[in-house]
């Protein structure tokens, strides 16, 4: 099945399950008042981040969005450090200074979640330029939402990546909404025509199907690695939660989320596919589920008891040299 061996599939499942579990736990903890700030959950969209990132190595870069947890986990960020960051702890990925919207780990090729819609695509052009100039063989991936696909910074980056012939991929994660506004309204034309308009191939993908995403991303990533330039993926998927935690979601249809959880669950689909084809066994997956649940539980426990940053941290980390 594709280029994925059993270890890869296990890995993919672990990451998807980790994302789901992470987000469900953050949802509960946020509701309980333990987590401060704005939090945007990725639950429901797991197959996109993981399907793309299973094509990547540490030397490859991704830039994420405000909805960044899934991308971080898919790219290999430390989950406990992430949880600590979301709790605002000193041992968090960013020392508690960034929080949910700014988790990054450059050593893993994760250039950061981003509080600015459309903030990532220009940065990804830069990471792709580094790869090209330094001949690392790396590629760079920008995740963008349907809402972010209307931001000028994103559109310019399509053009720049094309005229500079960069090893970049733009992954438009279209979950149907930007906050409460439907992409059906906000996106004039279409994502695929936009790709074409700037001179690159585009492909639409079912974002609940890990295998479809993996394969489409593979094509785009291979193309980029081969020096043939950027591509765009229009990934159609759904978010299970509100725009951010606290969103009452009145703009959604009655029962919309419940139905989605029934019908388009990328984890269930993955499980069905790999077990039906005999690639992995249900028991194996059950074990993973348990282990992941335990490790997320452990991450929350660790985060809760971890130390907050203090006065001595207030003035640091602004500059390398002062």
């Amino acid at each position, binding site marked *: 099945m594709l280029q994925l061996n059993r270890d890869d599939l296990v890995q993919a499942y672990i990451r998807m399950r980790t994302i789901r579990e992470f987000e469900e736990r953050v949802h509960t903890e946020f509701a309980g008042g333990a987590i401060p700030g704005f939090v945007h959950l990725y639950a429901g969209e797991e197959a996109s981040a993981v399907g793309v990132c299973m094509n990547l190595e540490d030397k490859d870069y991704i830039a994420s969005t405000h909805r960044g947890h899934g991308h971080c986990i898919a790219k290999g960020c430390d989950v406990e450090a992430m949880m600590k960051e979301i709790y605002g702890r000193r041992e968090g990925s960013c020392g508690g200074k960034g929080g949910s919207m700014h988790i990054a780990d450059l050593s893993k090729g994760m250039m950061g979640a981003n509080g600015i819609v459309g903030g990532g695509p220009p940065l990804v052009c830069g990471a792709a330029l580094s790869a090209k100039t330094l001949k690392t063989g790396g590629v760079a991936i920008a995740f963008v939402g349907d809402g972010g696909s209307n931001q000028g910074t994103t559109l310019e980056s399509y053009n720049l990546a094309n005229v500079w012939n960069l090893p970049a991929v733009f992954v438009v994660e279209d979950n149907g909404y930007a906050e409460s*506004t439907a992409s059906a309204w*906000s996106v004039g034309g279409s994502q695929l025509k936009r790709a074409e308009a700037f001179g690159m191939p585009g492909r639409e993908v079912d974002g609940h199907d890990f295998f479809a995403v993996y394969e489409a991303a593979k094509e785009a990533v291979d193309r980029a690695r081969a020096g043939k330039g950027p591509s765009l993926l229009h990934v159609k998927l759904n978010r299970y939660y509100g725009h951010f935690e606290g969103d009452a979601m009145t703009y959604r249809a009655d029962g919309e989320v419940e139905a989605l959880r029934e019908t388009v669950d990328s984890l269930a689909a993955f499980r069905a596919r790999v077990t039906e084809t005999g690639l992995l066994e249900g028991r194996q997956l059950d074990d993973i589920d348990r282990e992941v649940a335990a490790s997320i539980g452990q991450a929350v426990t660790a985060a809760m008891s971890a130390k907050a*940053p203090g006065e001595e941290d207030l003035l640091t980390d602004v500059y390398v040299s002062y």
Partner: protein
Amino acid sequence: MAKKSYRQAINEALAQEMRRDPTVIVMGEDNAGGLGAPGEDDAWGGVLGVTKGLMPEFGRERVLDTPISESSFIGAAAGAAATGLRPVAELMFVDFMGVCFDQIFNQAGKFRYMFGGKAVTPLVVRTMYGAGFRAASQHSQCLYPIFTHVPGLKVVLPSSPYEAKGLLIQAIRDDDPVIFLEHKVLYDDEEEVPDEPYTIPFGEANLTREGKDVTIVALGRMVKFANQVADGLETDGISCTVLDPRTTSPLDADSILESVEETGRLVVVDEASPRCNMATDISALVAEQAFGALKAPIRMVAPPHTPVPFAPELEDLYIPSPEKIGAAVREVMEHGA
């Protein structure tokens, strides 16, 4: 007259002006919400509900939701303002100004001058600012010093519900581009706010407290802190004037200078990053024009020169606190009895 929140006061100002003047329109991301979506219409009313209810009353033609394209819709508001409408455009968080600043400062803010006085651009950009929400570095900034720096813009910082309503109505009726900055932490603050429309003129500081020993000039949310501090100091026998400039551009320099002429001491409290901020602007004004009256060094209370941190413990240390304001006042009181 009833108690109203800062949020309600703003909403009421918008609704009343829209009723009065059919050329007033409102636009922004999810200002109504639910566009194209299967569920409820007017689903959001802005990210924190400030514009809720406007769309049902005025319709989608006057309450426009937008794609996430700040340059084009803030620019559209500027262009519409120059061609017959009075748009109130929402830049959700002031932190997002970096994706659309050109349309504000090089276009709207310069039309009148570049075109030799022939353009009129009654644009209001409403935007949310300030720390305290645990919203981290890209959703907590003040940035009003940047707008204040730019000739052609007016900059308004309402410090309470009453101020918010009167200043917003003034902003909408004003014929120049106005940046109207709403402190996100104040939205739930309440006070008595008249039901009828009223205006508060720009460039007239509000003397929120009269005292004789020290002048405290405070901005936005800091006005509340300054008055709290002044209450406490009163019992220690320190009598403070607290001035709220209300607008940083135009700035009521006269009131500030007059007050310092009387008290001889100045503390400026500014939530914005410390370099080239309003604290420096006001300090410099006084050091140049009321120097002779000064009995003590001027003290500025501002955050450190760092981005806004996420962790609550750090953010609380970051924001100028009543304690720091109090300490600054005591310090200047040690000079020249």
